[in-house]
């Protein structure tokens, strides 16, 4: 569906060129919800804007349904953009137009007959549950409502792909969940491929099938979301763990371990066996279970007060399907 090959983007207007994207390769299949996560400045926004060529890549190829969009002229590019919708952090609705007119906007660009526009807009209005707000102006709506209008607008042209650029970052947690479940429904019911750009780990965890993690314009992890967060293959990037555990390191003097339990492997009394086997003094600091794509992921932070061989302990845990990581 979307195939990004060797994509690079360099901003060369300043004296020292800034490499925003460095040799990015991503394949996104039809019907997937794909997360692109990273801190601000990681290059997420540039990357998503290359997918519909709102930003011009410096080099590389981007295939949408086997068509290399780098080869397209402006006219054909505009045509393909109608099949790649986009929603934004700032909603980007037209303030001078009503909710109805905003949703009708892409249809008017396509010069569809009025009756057809009317039917489609009303259908979308009820889909996003805003039929009663048809004649309101964006300034009269809450953030969540604005984003729903933006979603309706993005669906108007029946796109194949939806790019979501930090769409929930300006919203409170409750509204965020509302919008996320709406995105999930769009993905399931309309079979639209969704690319989600975000700096919020929670967003990726809750809706993305696959994820890439960007740091300084480079991909530092890529794969199934659950694998990335459970640190399978040890690809868990720094941005997930180190920062939030800095506090612990100040308060606990022993060796700190982060243990991740995925799915079925948590049934054996691993901790208890571990303590007996290695004669450990072990202090449990915190524990947490979260659900990624409906699969449970347990995390346990423990402090080893007395231990002989850290390496063998970690190996033991890894052999019992628990990912252990020193923090």
């Amino acid at each position, binding site marked *: 569906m979307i195939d990004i090959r060797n994509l690079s983007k360099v901003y060369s207007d300043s004296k020292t060129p800034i490499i925003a994207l460095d040799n990015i390769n991503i394949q996104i299949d039809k019907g997937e919800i794909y997360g692109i996560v990273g801190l601000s400045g990681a290059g997420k926004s540039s990357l998503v804007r290359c997918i*519909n060529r709102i930003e011009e890549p410096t080099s590389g190829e981007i295939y949408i349904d086997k068509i290399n969009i780098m080869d397209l002229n402006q006219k054909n590019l505009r045509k393909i*953009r109608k099949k790649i919708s*986009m929603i934004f952090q700032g909603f980007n609705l*037209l303030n*001078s137009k009503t909710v109805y007119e905003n949703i009708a906007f892409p249809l008017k660009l396509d010069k569809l007959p009025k009756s057809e526009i009317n039917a489609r807009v009303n259908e979308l209005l009820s889909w996003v549950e805003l039929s009663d707000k048809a004649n309101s102006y964006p300034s009269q709506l809450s953030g969540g409502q604005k984003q729903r209008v933006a979603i309706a607008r993005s669906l108007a042209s029946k796109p194949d792909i939806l790019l979501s650029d930090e769409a929930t970052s300006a919203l409170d947690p409750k509204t965020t969940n509302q919008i996320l479940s709406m995105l999930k429904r769009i993905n399931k019911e309309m079979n639209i491929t969704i690319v989600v750009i975000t700096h919020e780990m929670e967003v990726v965890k809750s809706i993305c099938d696959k994820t890439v993690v960007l740091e300084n314009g480079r991909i530092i992890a890529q794969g199934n979301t659950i694998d990335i967060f459970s640190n399978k293959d040890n690809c868990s990037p720094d941005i997930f763990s180190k920062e939030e555990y800095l506090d612990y390191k100040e308060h606990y003097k022993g060796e700190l371990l982060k243990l991740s339990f995925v799915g079925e492997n948590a049934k054996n009394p691993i901790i208890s066996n571990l303590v007996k086997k290695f004669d450990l003094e072990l202090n449990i600091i915190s524990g947490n279970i979260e659900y990624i794509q409906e699969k449970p992921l347990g995390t346990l932070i423990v402090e080893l007060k007395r231990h002989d061989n850290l390496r063998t302990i970690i190996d033991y845990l890894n052999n019992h399907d628990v990912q252990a990581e020193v923090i």
Partner: protein
Amino acid sequence: MIELLDLLIPSINETLYMVFISTVFTVILGLPLGILLVITREDSVLPNSKIYNSLSILINITRSIPFVILMIFIIPFTRLVVGSSIGTNAAIVPLVVAAIPFFARLVEGSILEVNPGVIEAGVSMGASPLEIVLKILIPEAMPSLVLNVTVTIINIIGYSAMAGAVGGGGLGYLAIGYGYHRFQTDVMFATVIILIILVQLIQISGNKISNSIYRK
């Protein structure tokens, strides 16, 4: 009193005529110019540094010439356009020439205020540069554009008095010809009052219209 009205009414009509026609031409020519100034910027929808730079320099040059001098300086051009260099129609030419760059700069400001995100949304929906101008930039900037047209009209009224003084007719001619050269203080006084009322009316209506379409 009747004598005074006989003097005032034709002058008011002349001024209104001059200002109205000048405003129409200024908006027709200045609006596209101002929009061009925005969309040819490096980061906008139709980047073209050559057009942007030459337009910008041209506007700056025109705006640096004081109106009284500009009026005389372009007399050959005025003759070419309206066939004469004296009279109300002849005054319209320099008024428009002076007001276009002024208005274009104001339009530039208005259009730049449009949220860049909305433009980006338009581009992402596959809108062409022309569609972005007509369906996004102008409607979104409308309240601010109305205010800037108001400012421009008031500016043209001021210039028109100057144009009147050198043969363009209107209230400016009346104030200087009668009020100053013939020492008719009442004429001078009446002219000033009328100008004040005129400017107030225009500003108030401009604000009203702008507010009625402002949706933020």
